[in-house]
């Protein structure tokens, strides 16, 4: 495909299954995702919708098995790359930051040593060069008095400070793509804003693309250019942040946005989406949102909707958006 050459990351029809006692459980069911160089794409959805599994699959770090599909990064299929070559990409060209900065650092080494380890591994720097570079990185991610912090252990740093260290490790080798798996979920709100601001400035400086995994729609609106909404292992809506937030086309996205509290009109009860996410072992034959959907009609329970075009790049997997066959222009 010609389009894939211009893409930094191109995920095609990704399926990830988990082997459990209850049998094979599909967590990701045919996800397509493109990221252009320098672009910020947000993947949103509630817990268990498969967004983290999708992100982890890019690095092949998921416990589940990739049963179908491909993950092309700069033209190479990461899902089939041999382990040693994959290791060079992990941490080298693709950086990753995690949700829990508290537990993402090794408690028995100083943070400086952990950053130096990455630098010596991927860039074959000498010990003194790695140390200088580490100080530079710590300064860049906004850690005051890096000479002191370098020699401290993770338990001596605050959560926000640890997340900054994690970011320093992730960007140490100037990756082309940064995967941020809920980078601010475990932090308090003021630190969240600082961390997102840091990510934004690093992204501009290094020209990295960012795949942001989150369930925080506010973060998405401020940070991302494009957004993909996931539900029960499938993309249900995708488009520019503006399109998706202003003209949500899928009933799930509409309900999700409707559930956000409006600070100008405080209400006693926040609106919620009725029902529950279907268990991945018992997915309905048709649209997986159909049981909770206020607009469900006759094709929904039996047929699976594909992504129908709403306008331009804005697409939604909902039969409401299916172009009516009868309206097709018939030649005279």
């Amino acid at each position, binding site marked *: 495909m010609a389009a894939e050459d211009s893409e930094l990351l191109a995920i095609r029809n990704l399926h990830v299954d988990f082997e459990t006692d209850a049998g094979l459980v599909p967590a990701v069911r045919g996800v397509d995702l493109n990221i252009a160089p320098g672009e910020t794409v947000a993947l949103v959805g509630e817990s268990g919708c498969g967004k983290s599994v999708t992100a982890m699959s890019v690095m092949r770090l998921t416990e589940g098995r990739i049963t179908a599909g491909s993950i092309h990064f700069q033209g190479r299929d990461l899902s089939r790359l041999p382990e040693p070559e994959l290791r060079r990409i992990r941490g080298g060209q693709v950086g990753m930051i995690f949700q829990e900065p508290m537990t993402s650092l090794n408690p028995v080494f100083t943070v400086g040593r952990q950053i130096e*380890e*990455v630098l010596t591994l991927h860039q074959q720097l000498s010990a003194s060069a790695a140390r200088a570079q580490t100080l530079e990185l710590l300064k860049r991610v906004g850690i005051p008095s890096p000479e*002191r912090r370098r*020699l401290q252990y993770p338990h001596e740093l605050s959560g926000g400070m640890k997340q900054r260290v994690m970011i320093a*490790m992730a960007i140490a080798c100037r990756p082309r793509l940064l995967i941020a798996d809920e980078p601010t979920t475990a932090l308090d709100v003021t630190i969240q804003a600082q961390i997102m601001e840091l990510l934004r400035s690093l992204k501009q400086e290094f020209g990295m693309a960012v795949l942001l995994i989150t369930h925080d729609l506010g973060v998405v609106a401020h940070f991302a250019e494009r957004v993909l909404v996931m539900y029960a292992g499938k993309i249900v809506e995708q488009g520019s942040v503006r399109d998706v937030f202003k003209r949500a086309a899928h009933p799930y996205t509409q309900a999700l946005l409707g559930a956000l509290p409006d600070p100008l009109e405080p209400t006693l009860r926040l609106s919620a989406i009725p029902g529950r996410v279907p268990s991945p072992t018992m997915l309905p034959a048709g649209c997986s949102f159909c049981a909770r959907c206020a607009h469900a009609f006759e094709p929904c329970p039996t047929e699976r909707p594909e992504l129908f075009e709403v306008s331009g790049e804005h697409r939604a997997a909902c039969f409401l958006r299916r172009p009516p066959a009868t309206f097709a222009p018939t030649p005279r």
Partner: protein
Amino acid sequence: MSIPVGPTPVVELAPRPEAEALGIAETPAQQLWRTFRKDRLAMLGLYVLLALVAVALLGNLLTGWWVVFDPTTVRLPDKLLPPLSAPSTALAPELRPPFGSYPFGTDELGRSVFARMLQGSFVSLSVGVVAVGISLSIGVTIGGLAGFYGQRKLGPVSIDTLLMRFTDVVLCFPTFFLILTVVALLPPSIYNIMIVIGITSWMSIARFVRAEFLALREQDFVTAAQALGLPEWRIIFRHMIPNAMAPVLVSSTINVAHAILTESALSFLGFGVRPPYATWGNILADGRSYIFDAPWLFLIPGAAILVVVLAFNLVGEGLRDALNPKLRRRAS
């Protein structure tokens, strides 16, 4: 718990001159040492062990290379002399003991018990240390493999099942009789005893390491290390083993005591080290025929074994408390 403990020891654990200059909190090792010091019994045990190491090294030097105290000189006129007695005048001048006295008396052949105990202390200590070294390497390897690669299948069974059931099988052997059988078949050399004790005492360590690895595998910092492209061996040896060592260290300390006891028992039964070479066990065994006539022959080696085993156990207990974060917080 702030009772002062004797003289402040001069042991410096992991000094960080740079860090101290910058006024940074202590390393995990320093923290461990600070808590350990508060345990008076454990400190007592540690002093005994340090003294034992000094005695063993000095003893090996003075009985082996630069023979001041000769454990093999037979002085029949001076047999079965009580401790602190002077040599008889009938003795040839070149046979007289150094400093004109037998500090621990003599045995039935007139050999100096002091010289024999010195020689035996080195045997006991090296048997303990080497046997535990062997059991540590087997235990950490098997436990680590089972914990890290356990999920992988090897034919119909997983690696974890294979290794841990093997561990259970070895655990079922009556260890002491197994050692007796093996030692009876092998030539009675000290190295054989070290190896045999080592390969029959690794099971608890393997179980500890496996349990720790299973927990560590799920830790974010291990996933983070993988996401940074670190090779597997580096993750295992640099990131997981240092985090898994706490319970292993405690059980190894107590295992040293066990190994010393086992060696003494073997020597006592005559399966241990060959007679002209003294160990605490065979001094005890030789002394049992003279239990009423020369009680020092069994009291001295018996007390030495008791004190050393007790010291190792005390240090192990102290380490266990110092490594337990809950107790540590209460203590500080």
